[in-house]
């Protein structure tokens, strides 16, 4: 059974802090203009997520969350960032990020989204008999999800869009680990990671340099395909 957690108690404060860090990092992702910096911040977010998962595993006494933490750390803090850096080098992608919406407006929009998340989540979960921690955690997770989605639609570079998607996924994992007693977290997060990996592969395979839609398919011809 989970511990009783309340304000001022260390477990709560710690979890709260880690969630807040995730949110701040999401804003940082939204704020950054340089691709490499974005990747690094994403890696940082992955590390924070791993720590949060581990901490939740500790306070909920749920050992499978350690596995989630490990998965998050290896996948999101190490493998994917490294892969992305390589892609940048290989494909000679522009280092500057092209935005569809200016940085400042997107920050304002981001703040609005956070407010919306809080307005939606906190009242709806009022009577859920859920712990305050879960509710706060869910609000933060929803913010991270929405910010990730915002990043996907306000950035024009494919790579930043991918990172937006992955940060969205971080929000999902954050939500999952925050809900006490949630089963299947490992399986689901692992499955989702597969999807993320597919997308990263796709970016690499299709030589997507600028936008998601700008697939470079010339090399497909060389495979020896008869083209219609």
């Amino acid at each position: 059974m989970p511990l009783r957690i309340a304000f001022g108690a260390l477990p709560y404060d710690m979890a709260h802090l880690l969630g807040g860090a995730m949110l701040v990092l999401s804003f940082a992702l939204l704020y950054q203009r340089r691709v490499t910096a974005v990747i690094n911040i994403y890696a940082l977010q992955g590390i924070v997520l791993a720590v949060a998962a581990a901490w939740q595993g500790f306070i909920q006494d749920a050992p499978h969350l350690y596995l989630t933490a490990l998965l998050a750390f290896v996948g999101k803090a190490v493998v994917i960032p490294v892969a992305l850096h390589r892609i940048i080098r290989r494909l000679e992608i522009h280092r500057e990020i092209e935005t569809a919406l200016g940085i400042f407006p997107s920050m304002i929009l981001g703040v609005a989204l956070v407010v919306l998340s809080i307005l939606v989540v906190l009242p709806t979960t009022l009577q859920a008999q859920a712990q305050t921690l879960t509710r706060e955690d869910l609000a933060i997770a929803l913010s991270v999800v929405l910010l990730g989605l915002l990043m996907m639609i306000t950035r024009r570079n494919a790579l930043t869009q991918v990172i937006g998607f992955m940060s969205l996924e971080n929000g999902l994992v954050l939500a999952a680990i925050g809900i006490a007693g949630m089963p299947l977290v490992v399986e689901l997060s692992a499955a989702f990671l597969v999807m993320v990996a597919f997308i990263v592969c796709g970016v690499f395979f299709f030589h997507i340099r600028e936008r998601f839609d700008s697939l470079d398919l010339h090399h497909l011809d060389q495979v020896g395909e008869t083209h219609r």
Partner: protein
Amino acid sequence: MALPLLAAIVVALLGLGVVGAVAPPRKNLVHGGCAGFSAVGAVLSLGLLLAPGAATMSVPIGLPGMSMHLAVDSLSAIFLLLLFVTASAAAIFALDAHGDEETRALPFFPVFIGAMALSLLAADSFSLLFGFELMSLSSWAMVLYRHTEETSRDAGLLYLGMAAFSAACLIPAFGLLSTGLSGDIDLRFAALRALPPEGWRAVFVLVLVVLGAGAKAGLVPLHVWLPLAHPAAPSHVSALMSGAMTKVALYVIIRVLFDLCGPAQPLWWGFPLLVMGAASAVLGALRANMESDLKSVLAASTVENVGFIAIGIGLALIARGADLSSLAALALAGALLHALTHGVFKTLLFLGAGAAQHGGGSRVLQRLGGLVHRMPITTLCMIVGCVGLAALPPGPGFASEWLLFQAVLAAPRIGGLGLQTMMAVLAALMALAAALGAAAAVRLLGVAFLGRPRTPRVAAAEEARAPARWAMLGLAGLCGVLGLFPGLALGLIEPALRLLVRADLSRQIGPLTVQPAADMPGYGAPMIAALLLVAGGAAFLAIRRWAVPGHRRGPAWACGFAAPPAWLPFGDPVTQYGGASFAQPLRRALGTALLAARERVDMPRPGETRPARFSVTARDPADAFLSAPIGWTREKLVDIADSMQFLTIRRLLSVMFVVLVLFLAVVAGIEAS
């Protein structure tokens, strides 16, 4: 007993459709079967009319959890009779059908008849609409029998679009009728009757039924498809489409407005039909004078006649709302009688047009002429039909229009200066339409069947063969009976009037006279016919007795034109009046205003060798004010819908994002409130 047999006939007809689809097509089997089954059906429905009574049955198919309910009463029996009589004539005519193209219509013809019978037999809304839509679908397939021609395809598309529109109006109309019921859906008419609609629900039912069934019947302004689609089908099918199918739509109007909606509906219910009917009558008749295609003329005149029937229905609704059941009966009797007679003579005319098309090789008025010499029987039948078209006494159409006029003339009794003035205008419009109809009939006969042949093909036309001839002669005889003894037909209609408006007309209807009221002199068709016969006979005998016998032949007076060249043995065919020239005075006076008709003459300058050309363009007002805006609006909406496609991934995600945020905001809003 009759009802199960009728149901069996429907099933048998649908089965014949399958036979028709089997290759190689068994043409005579299908058409013969149609004729036979229809004849049996006609006898059965006649029996039902002579010994009135209601019967119901249910068949365990149809909507899930509900059976298909069938019933027949004196109203549906009238229309069944009309349907089966015209269908058997059309089927007999089609025994003589030629060519591969006609066989394309083969599987659909029996289905068409069966579907019409089904919608007439239906006793629940689903069965009715099932039959109605099946009817549209099967006739659509036949409209497309020459689908390699683009005009034919366009007509088919417009036709089915309108059919879809009808369905989209009628299904909600029946839905509204059944919404008053609590609990499970009960679509049976008996249940609908028990709870007639009131208030706005009733208004919507009225609007939807008038639009939905009116579109199928070809009421202005929803008639645009009719002069295109009816002529496009093979002639025996056009005959049924004009003769029977439009009547099925009118049957739906009568069934819903008089029967299912109950008697407690307000007076103004009749006005929409009245206005649409008057517009249809005038516009249809005018168009019948302008069309250049034999079958289009007939189709346009169908619009006119449907208008007359709608006027009768509307007037009956008004009278019923004013509690004048005898007046309502008069108007409805006129409408039903006109439906019957128009069904018969229009079928005859279309069959005749088909024979002319086959014999003369064209159905364009300007390429026919002088068929009377080579096709005397067809011409005779056409003349009989045209007497009906022109509503001249003692022809078939006169009695019904006379009844309608009587109803209009009696309607001012209802009171209210507005209504009275409206009736006066209505009477004038009806007279205008009737006179236009007469002009159209003369034009049709005069240009296509009289005069000199305009092409060598027409000059060598062949008379229709035996089965077709018999079909036409039979219908012509029926026209004669309907014209001479309208009282008999009204006797068949009378039980329906008792059912619908609870009025007893039996004292006003006799075999010899038809009276607008029991103690008033009326129209004695046999008497008039006898009078004509006596006068004509006397003249004939006088001539035989006193005048010189025999005659001589000589060339017609051509006002000093040069003699035609030798290779034109019948004279230059274009020096006679054609369809466009006949209509010219009307086109100039009424056509420019109502149909936006424009004449253009391309006269070469002296010395140029090209021929002078004269062209006429016309546009139906419904085209300009209804179809065009609809098309335009649709294009705009399609533009909008199209802009939602081919989005980039980012845009697509933005849409998702917006939807998500909107939903979340709604949830937040709900929680906050």
